[in-house]
């Protein structure tokens, strides 16, 4: 069996890449994909700990995370479609309507 620690390190690498994408990209859809990457890294951690501690709770949390990620993707992409209709761009720098 592969040590739990290695899965945790893989998950840390993927989470870091997601953070990097959110912080450095301007394309709204790419930022969304980076968020999906982070969500998946956390799912991997949940499953690694579920196997480590023989608990089903981690697995069930993964289902809820998947459902919430689906809802978030649907609403977020709808927001970007709406933004594109108003501004002809999905650059998040251009979405400054609520800036003071």
């Amino acid at each position, binding site marked *: 069996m592969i040590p*739990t620690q290695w899965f945790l390190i893989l998950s840390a690498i993927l989470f870091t890449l997601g953070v990097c994408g959110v912080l450095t*990209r301007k394309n709204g859809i790419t930022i969304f994909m980076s968020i999906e990457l982070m969500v998946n890294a956390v799912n*991997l951690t949940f499953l690694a700990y579920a196997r480590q501690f023989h608990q089903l709770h981690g697995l069930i949390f993964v289902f809820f995370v998947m459902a919430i990620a689906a809802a978030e993707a649907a609403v977020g992409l709808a927001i970007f479609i709406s933004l594109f209709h108003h501004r002809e761009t999905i650059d998040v720098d251009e979405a400054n309507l609520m800036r003071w």
Partner: protein
Amino acid sequence: MIEYAVFFFFAAIAVIFAFVVILHRNPVVSALSLVASLFALAVMYVLLEAPFVAALQVIIYAGAIMVLFLFVIMLLNLQKRPEEPTRPVQQFVGYLGSAAFGIGLIYYLSKYAVMELPTEPFVADARTVGIRLFDAYLFPFEMVSILLLAAIVGALILSGRAVGERAEIGAEVTK
């Protein structure tokens, strides 16, 4: 032994395609790389003895959510407009900060997260997961259905036409 080879091969695939996701300028390439990365993660779930979750990962993530992403990219015709680099200082700080965060996280995990593996195997098939889901987690499960309904309504309202336009169409239909 073969287990380790599979782990390293698919871990490398997941990380390389994750790099492509965040570095490539074309969002279509990013989305397809994310699909590849998610497939590699499904293999990880199989290695973690959770085959049911791996199947769900392929069906829901690679199947449904990523198709939604690709649809929106195609719909908005984004593949022809690469983003131009502006604000280099902020971008550099972003790379630096996330690199520091990642190094700190990996250092902490490799030093303190050393755990002994349990001896008896842990099987998380659809049957055990389903029984637990409809037993202890029944109420959150039903709440998720309401959340998904709210997401459907919200997405329809946000992406649909403006309210006045919709009223006009309604008036035409009733005529």
